[in-house]
């Protein structure tokens, strides 16, 4: 009873979500298809399609990318590699520095203005510099992604460690935990919950780093495909690239959710009673 009702509502939910997607695409198609309805914003019948692209054409481009000319695979692989590398390195660095500074108040006090400064700096502006330092390959994009991911994770870990329950901490100390054991068994697990709450935004940021990096100078990647298409005003290809990227970001977010569900199973969830 319980399982089937949850299943039912889940299927219903997914159906509604898909329906909304279809409605959006239908509206898009309706408004942009040349000659379908008389133009009321633009002067010309073709202008709507020129500015906003046409869903059918966009799907055609995506289909071609994936099943005809296979152009997307190497590019997507590059973008995803950059994203994953930036995500992993940025997260690990943020975790380590966050733990360190939270447990070393003097160092934290000294570095405080620098961290705030680096965090408020618009870091996308660093992309050309990274291009000069690390070349046009994946290195510069990973570097940009790391600078974006690092601060999100860092601030969350920093906050998380400082908000460890003093009772739990005192209790662990009374049970004989030494410094490294406190770090491993109390600070780290406590900070993990904060890390996970930041991972959703940081996976998006890693993606932004990769694509913006490619957009500003590269020879491979989905950002590069979009840039190329833009230079020839091929709006359909631009839109296709954006859709593919969005889809990939959704999948990455889903993976994070799964990992979170597994790692955070000790956290209480609301309304866990069961219907009999």
């Amino acid at each position, binding site marked *: 009873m319980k399982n089937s009702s949850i299943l039912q509502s889940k299927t219903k939910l997914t159906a509604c979500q898909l329906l909304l997607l279809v409605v959006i695409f239908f509206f898009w198609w309706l408004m942009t298809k040349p000659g379908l309805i008389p133009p009321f914003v633009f002067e010309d019948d073709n202008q709507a399609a020129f500015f906003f692209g046409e869903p059918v054409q966009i799907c055609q481009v995506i289909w071609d990318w994936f099943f005809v000319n296979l152009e997307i695979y190497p590019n997507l692989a590059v973008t995803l590699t950059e994203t994953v590398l930036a995500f992993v390195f940025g997260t690990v660095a943020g975790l380590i520095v966050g733990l360190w500074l939270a447990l070393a108040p003097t160092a934290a006090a000294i570095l405080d203005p620098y961290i705030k400064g680096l965090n408020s700096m618009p870091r996308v502006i660093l992309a050309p510099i990274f291009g000069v330092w690390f070349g046009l390959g994946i290195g510069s994009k990973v570097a940009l992604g790391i600078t974006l991911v690092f601060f999100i994770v860092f601030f969350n870990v920093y906050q998380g460690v400082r908000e460890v329950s003093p*009772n739990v901490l*005192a209790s*662990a100390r*009374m049970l004989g935990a030494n410094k490294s054991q406190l770090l491993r*068994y109390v600070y780290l*697990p406590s900070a993990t919950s904060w890390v996970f709450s930041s991972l959703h935004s940081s996976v998006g940021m890693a993606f932004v780093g990769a694509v913006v990096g490619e957009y500003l100078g590269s020879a491979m990647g989905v950002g590069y495909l979009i840039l190329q298409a833009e230079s020839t005003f091929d709006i359909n290809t631009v839109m296709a690239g954006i859709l593919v990227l969005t889809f990939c970001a959704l999948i990455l977010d889903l993976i994070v959710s799964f990992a979170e569900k597994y790692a955070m199973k000790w956290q*209480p969830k609301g309304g866990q009673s069961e219907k009999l």
Partner: protein
Amino acid sequence: MNHPALEFTEVTCSFVTPDGNHYTAVRDVNLTIGDGEFVSVVGPTGCGKSTLLNMSAGLLSPSKGTVKVFGEELTGLNKRAGYMFQAEALMPWRTAIANVSAGLQFAGKPQNEVKEMAEHWLARVGLRGFEDRYPHELSGGMRKRVALAQTLIMDPDIILMDEPFSALDIQTRQLMENEVLDLWAQKKKAVLFITHDLDEAISISDRVVVMSAGPASHPIGEFVIDIARPRDVAEVRVTPRFIELHNAIWADLREEVLKGYENQRNKVKA
């Protein structure tokens, strides 16, 4: 000669409040807890009971005076004590059994031995079958039992308890008190038990210490509880001797409770 488990000599503990004032929690405390003795400290709210306990644990160091543990002056954490906190102190990311085994794990005991001991202790506090539950999946009383097992598995020579059952309903509370008494009777460790509940204090202790109202509180009375053991905490409450002792201690405590209440009311007014 046998040293007492805990010995406070002229202990004063004061704090600097965030607005720069000094607050003296306890002043000139002399208190001795013998080896294997069950001592309760009662007093009005804000009388520095927890301060006393934190000093026994070595989490706080006295501003003046000395705390001796089995004859040796305490510096740093009290390694011979186990502490059961008033608030929730279980690690929420660990299952019941992992929480109970934490201390032994920290001590570097072999894994299979730790597991066996932890299972044994969970069973002893009546939680067989709840090994893999996380704290949030347990009731308040069960969490307290896990905390009890977590403390006692280390076999500490001194057990410090800070109103451990104050959040429990009266029935669960009496069950837990009886369990603590059972476990204590088997091992006869020194216990320093903090409570604001006089009934609880009399029914489980060998000796009850009454603290004056804060600030600068200190013990103002000591009562030996000469009720025969083993006791049942619920049954003992209706015996004549219990009522006699209760009246005697309450006569002392009552004034302090009123004073403490008055102090806090003035603080609110000021």
